[in-house]
């Protein structure tokens, strides 16, 4: 049986806003030193990400994902390494582990472009936080649109108390 190397595989997700053909995009991904990191708590800081991701190699830069409206962290980031080898180790050993008690997910990214740091959801955050039905204290409570539709109190509930990884 051949040995699977998670660093050599591309996930199913493709950035829909990528400018270029699908083949170009995949070639980019296979050479990239940038990772998209998802499922972060809104309260996780750049410093913490440096600490965890620095374990796989020297980091060139981190770009925190921000809510388009509020300009506050909205649960994702881009991590760029100096070398491909370090980024590959990160795909092997960081994805699926915990940061602020949440299992985080890493994916290859074709490289950061200005504008991509903002959430693409209607409410300013990430699309996945629009219709989410569960209550996730690390990511602003209920989904934004879900909360508006189903909860007469609306945003009031969303701003309610922090959970285990609450604000500092």
């Amino acid at each position, binding site marked *: 049986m051949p*040995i699977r190397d998670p660093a050599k595989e591309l996930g199913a997700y493709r950035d829909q806003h990528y400018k270029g053909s699908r083949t170009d995009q995949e070639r980019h991904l296979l050479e990239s030193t940038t990772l998209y990191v998802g499922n972060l708590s809104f309260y996780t800081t750049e*410093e*913490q990400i440096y*600490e965890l991701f620095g374990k796989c190699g020297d980091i060139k830069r981190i770009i*925190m994902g921000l809510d388009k409206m509020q300009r506050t962290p909205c649960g994702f980031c881009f991590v760029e390494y100096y070398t491909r080898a370090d980024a590959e180790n990160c795909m092997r*050993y960081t994805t699926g582990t915990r940061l602020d008690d949440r299992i985080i997910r890493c994916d290859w990214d074709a490289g950061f472009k200005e504008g991509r740091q903002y959430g693409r959801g209607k409410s300013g955050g990430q699309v996945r936080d629009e219709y989410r039905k569960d209550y996730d204290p690390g990511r602003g409570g209920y989904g934004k649109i879900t909360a508006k539709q189903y909860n007469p109190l609306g945003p009031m509930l969303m701003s309610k108390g922090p959970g285990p990884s609450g604000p500092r």
Partner: protein
Amino acid sequence: MERLLTNIDAYISKRQKVHVPILRVWSSDIPHPQEEYLDCLWAQIKKMRMDKWQERQIVRPYLAFDNILCEALQHNLPPYNAPPHTDDSAYPMPTVVFRMFDYTDAPEGPVMPGHHSVDRYLIEENLRRIIDTYAVDRKECAAQLLNYPFKNKIPLNYHIVEVVYGQLFQLPFAPHVDVFYTTLLIELCKLQPSSLPQVLAQATEMLYERIDTMNISCVDRFVNWFSHHLSNFQFRWSWDDWVPCVELDSSLYKPKFVQEVLGKCVRLSYHQRIVETVPDAYGPLLPHEPNHVYKYEQEGAGSLPGTVAAHQLIASIKAKAEPEELMNILKDLPNPKKDDDGEAAFNPLKIDVFVQTVLHLGCKSFSHAFSALAKFHGIFRELAEEEEAQIHILRTMYDVWKKHPQMMFVLVDKMLRTQIVNCSAVANWLFSHDMSQDFTRLYVWEIMHSTIRKMNKHVDKVQKELGDAQQKTEKSGDKSGSEDEMQDMDRVDEEEIERLQERLESAQSEQKKLFLVIFQRFIMVLTEHLGRCETSGKDFNTAWYRYSIERLQQIFLQHHSTVTKYLDTLENLLFTSDTDAHILQVFQQFCALRA
């Protein structure tokens, strides 16, 4: 066969083993001997011979096919010739066998084979092979380890934990990147939640109990592994058990270990969380809240000579003033260093006001701090022309961020990469009197090694560029073309190669200087300590001394291929017969590694 065994025996007993101490995880042989790998293997083979060549750990799938195989055609094995020795033959680095368990540690179930049983070697070798094969896929690796063929006949969890720790603590380097072992142990805990975490906790407790004789490089890895592991399990640990270490002398290894672990835990989560997680008794070992101190806004700042300028600087930066304007504000600051001749190379007050203020304005996050460095890069360079000035920049950064080691680490990284400071300035700063308080803190050595690594990578990069350029000219020489064209091209290439050669020479001399600075400063602080102890009649072998001498070893080991290049210089200039024998010993052990 007999003759072969006799020859090996003679060889083994003749071997020089000066290199062994530098590779040992523990300096003590209690409770378990830390044997040189060939010595141990030879003892295991001799014991196997006494046991009539019996072992129980080799899988023999062919036994199931005995009927078919006994009638099959026999093949001759091709003869084996050992490859001849050449000057560039690369031999594996010797190792010391890592042992932390014996049969008394695994109380129930199958018995652990003894240290000199060949079964122990075979199990370890098999587990190591699984790890090396599946290292890229931690989940599969964990599954394969737990699926070991003889799992019911041995205390498998104990063997796995020992082998994983053995690799993690291997000197000079772990075979795989350190973080792999962390995530492998997390997967093992997830797959075997009812039994593996207990063994891991027992092992961790043992490492803690034996930490006084543990090599400092291994202590560093222990700190990093343990804090990272805890961050994946809500920082749950029997913290109460370690409370007694708070009462110990804070220079000892146990309180230092706990202090560093808590520091790293804070970096992976946040201050308040860790404060609330550990018992209150840990107070003295807890890190400060990672805030900055801006001198010019503290109480009583009004009387400082730079305060007015600092406040002007803030206002001008906020008003988006040009760099010249900012320099103008700094221009009139008096120079406290100025001597009677009016000659002074740099003005520390200027640096202090500027660096304090810029870091203060960029204090919100790493990104803010980095953009501050980038935005005022020109002024930084102007203020930091000479090394003394660079050291003062670093000292000022320390004044602002001393409660936030991680911030200092990333700032030094950025300042090196943007050439605000050079590598030897960083080394001199770390050895300076201002930093002596923190000399035994982990972050100081993280900065030191990261600085050396950057220097080495830079040299390698220029070397590669030069190699590539040289290859290109050789190739273009083969091509046909008009003669004029060729000459033109050759000239360009030659200029390029000359330029690269110059760059390489200057990079190499910078690298050499860096190592000379580091080793010289080491010899100075250690000699001073030894001298002080001798005059006062005290035992020199203190926790500080062991810590420092092992840091010296660490420099040799972690950068051995580079240090080897400068061995002659080091021997002639620094590690001479005038050097104290204790310090010289480290150098000799290092040289013996490749002998």
